[in-house]
């Protein structure tokens, strides 16, 4: 078998559980030391001046502004949506984030609050964040959110089944959820912090894409480590190789732990030098974050004025 599969191999692989297993285990390995070295080399890129200005604006427009707390209330979500509408009251040139990401029961609130803005409503579903529920319950969760008006569904895979080698079960679940999404976009969360190895990250990425993911996403944000650079690198390589095999562009969303402008720029560099600039667009790239936006706003203000303002010069969500 060649190192990387083509479309025929993909079709053949999904025919049986054992075929799928052979296919995933036959993907080229990831040398962890090498992947970490590559990621840290890219993280050392020096992004300055105009390049930094552009990168910061791009980062803002790719953010899925997120609140996923048990204590979330309609008021908190409305407040977050207001922040998404006007990220920086002192600067009307500031772009808006791509989406607001919330729990399913709050979708109606967000839909109402974001009407007419073009900002998408993303809902986490499928028994987020653990994914531990029956398929029926997970599907009902998805249908609920879609019916309430969610544009995007962020699902979690069953890590227990994946680690037990029950790849076919994971694949079937992703397919079922994709179907339940209807017109909504599907982001599949691998929760890479629980997958333990980069080999698993690569396999899970392929599995999610085979199941019909529109986006693959690193983490729920509830588990540490979350969106590390080596993990992002391996997932982007999978996205790149999938495009080579099928001609389809799948989106990528690192989420969890990206808190500073510096972090965000490192991730953008990774995209730029791994899959290319086609992916530097909210339709193919998102950053899941809650506190990142304010750090970027402070950076933008500093680039405009030459001085750092304090935290009191950006709004809380």
């Amino acid at each position: 078998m060649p190192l990387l599969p083509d479309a025929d191999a993909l079709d053949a692989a999904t025919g049986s559980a054992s075929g799928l297993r052979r296919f995933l285990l036959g993907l080229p390995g990831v040398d962890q030391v090498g992947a970490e070295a590559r990621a840290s080399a890219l993280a050392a890129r020096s992004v300055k001046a105009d390049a930094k200005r552009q990168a910061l604006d791009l980062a803002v427009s790719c953010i899925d502004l997120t609140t996923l707390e048990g204590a979330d209330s309609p008021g908190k979500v409305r407040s977050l949506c207001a922040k998404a509408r006007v990220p920086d009251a002192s600067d009307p040139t500031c772009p808006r984030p791509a989406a607001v990401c919330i729990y399913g029961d709050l979708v109606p609130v967000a839909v109402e609050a974001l009407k007419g803005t073009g900002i998408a409503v993303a809902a986490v579903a499928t028994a987020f964040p653990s994914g531990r529920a029956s398929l029926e319950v997970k599907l009902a969760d998805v249908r609920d959110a879609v019916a309430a008006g969610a544009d995007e569904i962020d699902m979690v895979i069953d890590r227990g089944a994946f680690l037990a080698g029950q790849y076919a079960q994971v694949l079937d679940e992703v397919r079922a959820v994709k179907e339940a999404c209807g017109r909504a976009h599907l982001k599949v969360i691998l929760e890479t912090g629980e997958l333990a190895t980069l080999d698993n990250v690569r396999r899970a990425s392929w599995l999610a894409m085979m199941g019909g993911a529109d986006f693959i996403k690193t983490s729920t944000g509830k588990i540490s480590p979350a969106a590390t650079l080596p993990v992002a690198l391996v997932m982007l390589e999978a996205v790149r190789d999938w495009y080579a095999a099928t001609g389809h562009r799948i989106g990528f969303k690192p989420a969890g732990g990206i808190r500073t402008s510096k972090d965000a720029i490192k991730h953008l560099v990774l995209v730029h030098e791994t899959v290319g600039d086609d992916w530097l667009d909210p339709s193919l790239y998102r950053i899941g974050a809650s506190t990142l936006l304010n750090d970027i706003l402070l950076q933008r203000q500093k680039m405009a004025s030459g001085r750092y303002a304090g935290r009191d010069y950006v709004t809380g969500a």
Partner: protein
Amino acid sequence: MTFDYAPAPESTAVVDIAPSYGLFIGGDFVESLDGSVFDTVNPATEEVLSKVTQAGTADVDRAVRAARAAYEGVWSHLPGRERGKYLFRIARILQERAREFAVLESIDNGKPIKESRDVDIPLAAAHFFYHAGWADKLSYAGHGPAPKPLGVVGQVIPWNFPLLMLAWKIAPALACGNTVVLKPAETTPLTALLFADVCRQADLPAGVVNIITGDGDTGRALVEHPGIDKVAFTGSTEVGKAIARAVAGTPKRVTLELGGKAANIVFDDAPIDQAVEGIVNGIFFNQGHVCCAGSRLLVQESVAEEVLVALRRRLLTLRVGDPLDKNTDVGAINSAAQLSRICEISDSGDAEGAVRWSPPFSQPDKGFWFPPTVFTEVAPAHRIAREEVFGPVLAVLTFRTPDEAIEKANNTPYGLSAGVWTEKGSRILWAADRLRAGVVWANTFNRFDPTSPFGGFKESGWGREGGRHGLEGYLR
């Protein structure tokens, strides 16, 4: 959007280059007795940086005498722990002045600042730290219970890693109790001359380290000087052979680190993305000016096309240009002479039927440049598969079985390094056992560490540098 990195040049304010330099002999910069001067230029801009002295035979003689006097008078009497103190001090000063050294190295050599900053200078300091630790423990190094220094060592180093090669040479020599006369390459003398300042800052006794500049004639005069006890040379195999002939029949000891034509072997089960990084690092690191560069890629036939597709795609993101830009991956070729050698041997690749490919590259108006280049359809008989290019030129060959890979890898007059890429641990051990090379890297390439001995088989050299083994060349 298109994401172009804005220029991110490192500041040169930290560097102070004098309009001219004398020779560092006996602890002072002195004028030449019989020499002339020549220019050292910035290979990225062709700007003349400074005038340095072409040391003549009288200068060489003076330097050797200064080293002898320091050896007899001070250095050979010092207990190891005292020598260690000086070496530790030098290491710390190198760290403190790391930025100054890194910027100067990139200006004089043409290598990217990220490599001089993150590789050359930290490793140079590490070599002094490491050998400082050995200075008072030589009895435990496995070279006899009471090893003795050799005396005065004449050292000649190349232009590819000017300060790092200086550290590889001077640190073990001083740790073992020798004194040195070192000649840096004529195109890259500036960091060695700045190192002279470090020696003074460290209060190193006068004459323990002497630095004389000049071309091959100066080097020859040093090698042939009857007052030295040992020659240590890193450079081309051709010059290495001349040195071996020159010292034959004399009591002088010799260590030689010479050329290479390393095989980087990619098996069909390799971690492909990391292997591609390893190929890039193997041949395009330091513009390919690396004696252990992985200049022959041996890739298993069943995956050759895919590896090459991935490699070409990767090379499209390799950034060639201003060495002082922090985002530059590949800098300038060190000299016009080296550029013409690279061009000449690459042209032979075209003429002999190999297929040349380079990513799009816009050549700066000034300076010496050569784009990263891959030759496919290379036959083992082609010159580009046999001769050391010492530039960013990769020759790709294929193999079908592991035995064939080993046979092709070993079919070279050289034997400095090799690389093996496979997910199978047993195959790594099997291959490493059969490869006739001083260093075999597994799933990585071009990794250096002061604790790890380095050196070649066959025409790649005599002796080892670094590690416990490297001390042997400076002891009797």
